[in-house]
């Protein structure tokens, strides 16, 4: 695992030498200039990644064991051990709904959009009249930000001016539903909007994966008399293993990172609690509870690191081949 501690080592080390120069070096000065440029070319990007991503992530872990208002000097930091984690689990009411909502979010993304995206990719991975148009329509939402998607779906969901209620009013006299406001249903309403975007993304990933599947595999299956369903379940799907892993990781990470859409709707309250929104409101909100917010962030960090590790090791193994 790429823990911040070990990660800090590489850039500090001198740049590695050129692999076995075959001809005698022409000029030593030229060689030194090259070493400097190599060091800078790798060192500057590495410094940015370590300094602005990994080291802050490590500091967050440390801060999660402290109490601090974030404004006072570093000497005002008070060491409290695991108190923040205990508090989060016991006396912080939004924590449990946030965990539950994140889980619902993840399960929902996995069931409908991921399966639908895969299904659409299978349907569209063939010569089909208008195939490109279908593809374009399905991935159109992928280019939109989730914040904007929250805006656009407001037009459908609004309790007084929304399309959905206007439509429902044609059939019944039931009182208008506040789709984004009612804490019993707003999570699902938001998930429809988020799934709308996720489906297209998953479809694209599977379309790329399906193109890479060796066509002779399918031919062999067809010769053996396998129908399209059988061919997919027994031959194509197993060959998609790497892409399946990528899809699992992408979905988990997206599920954990989900933030914009709930923040734009109601700042992640009232039925839309997510861990990402809790962290943000604890840190940039009026209360500014740094240690406590960090403890919540570490929960996110821990879950995502598991999946990041799986992803990175899979992808790098593939790249090494």
């Amino acid at each position, binding site marked *: 695992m790429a823990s911040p501690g070990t990660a800090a080592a*590489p850039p500090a080390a001198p*740049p*590695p030498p*050129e*692999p076995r120069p075959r001809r005698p070096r*022409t000029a030593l000065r*030229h060689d030194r200039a*090259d070493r400097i440029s190599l060091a*800078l*070319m*790798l060192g500057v*990007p590495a410094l940015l*990644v370590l*300094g*602005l*991503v*990994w080291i*802050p*992530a490590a*500091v*967050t872990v440390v801060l999660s064991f402290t109490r601090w208002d*974030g404004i006072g000097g570093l000497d005002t930091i008070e060491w409290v051990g695991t108190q923040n984690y205990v508090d989060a689990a016991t006396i912080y009411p939004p924590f449990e709904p946030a965990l539950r909502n994140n889980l619902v979010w993840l399960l929902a993304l996995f069931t409908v959009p991921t399966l639908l995206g895969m299904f659409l990719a299978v*349907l569209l991975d063939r*010569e089909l*009249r208008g195939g490109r148009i*279908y593809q374009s*329509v*399905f991935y*159109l*939402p992928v280019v939109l*930000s989730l914040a904007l998607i929250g805006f*656009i779906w*407001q*037009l*459908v969901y*609004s309790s007084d001016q929304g399309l959905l209620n*206007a*439509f429902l009013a044609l059939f019944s006299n039931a009182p208008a539903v506040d789709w984004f406001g009612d804490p019993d249903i707003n999570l699902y309403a938001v998930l429809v909007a988020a799934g*709308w975007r996720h489906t297209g993304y998953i479809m*694209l990933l599977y379309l*790329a994966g399906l193109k890479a599947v060796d066509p002779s595999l399918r031919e062999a299956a067809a010769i053996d008399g396998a129908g399209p369903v059988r061919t997919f379940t027994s031959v194509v799907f197993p060959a998609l293993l*790497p892409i399946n892993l*990528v899809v699992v*990781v992408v979905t988990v990470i997206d599920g954990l990172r989900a*933030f914009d859409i709930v923040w*734009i709707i109601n700042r992640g309250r009232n039925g839309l609690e997510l861990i*990402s929104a809790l*962290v943000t409101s604890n840190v940039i909100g009026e209360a500014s509870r740094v240690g406590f*917010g960090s403890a919540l*962030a*570490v929960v996110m*960090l821990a879950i*995502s*690191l598991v999946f990041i590790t799986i992803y*990175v090791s899979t*992808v*790098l193994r*593939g*790249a*090494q081949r």
Partner: protein
Amino acid sequence: MTATTLPAARRRRIRPARAALHTFLVITALAWFFPVLWAVINSFRDYDYTTVHGYLSLGGFTLDNYVNAWDQGRMPVYFLNSLVITVPAVLLTLFLSSCAAFVLSNYSRRFNLVMLAVFLAANLLPPQALLVPLFRLYTSIRLPYWISESGSLYDSHMGIVLIHVAFQIGFCTFVLSNFMKAMPSSLLEAARVDGASVFQQYWKVVLPLCRPSLAALATLLVTWIYNDFFWALALLSSGDKMPITTALQNLQVSFFVDYNLLSAGSVIVALPTLIVFFLLQRHFVAGLTLGASKG
């Protein structure tokens, strides 16, 4: 790609299965396109008209919503902010990540995998996990006032550019190093024989060959950075400095009373990404699947 290019497919009679497939796809596609279409339609309709006749009516078409959204939403200011953040961030990310990829794929055998892992993993971390230390770091880095009005990295466009670069370098380095590894090593050998320095090898030999990957990545980065909501929210405090995506939050107040105005505002904000979608579709798809298909 379509069946029209295949005479064999045309000659065959349309089978029921194919008809069912098309019916399913048409219905799903229409449902998918509908929310965007709905926003576009309503953006052209007069508020007074829809208030009286309801949204399930026809008529009252106008362009006023666009004019009002543009003015009342102070769109020019926010768009300029988005531009000032996105362009340098994309260029800097591509430059730095191609540098790193060049070194990692040609020179550094030993650190190659470790560094790639560190880079790539950084791209996937939840941004909220870095928020507190970054906030503190940004407020404590002092900058001269001619660079940042706030006097620190916090509440400056430069700070937002830097965090985007740091976050996106990982993915781009990974994609580019895969691409560079596939280049024949004889290219660099030849350049070395001609006495080219390391930087010349990178700038004159390798980089021009990376153009397709760079185009795909640039398209993707423009979309991602333009769409960012969180970093500007967390690391900027003045409303005047917000990029358009984050400014949506403030626009809510003025827009949510009039849904036709809201529609027009949404369409305006979506426009740059929609242009990417229509004009650079090939690059966007290529970029999105670059990292994944390698796995």
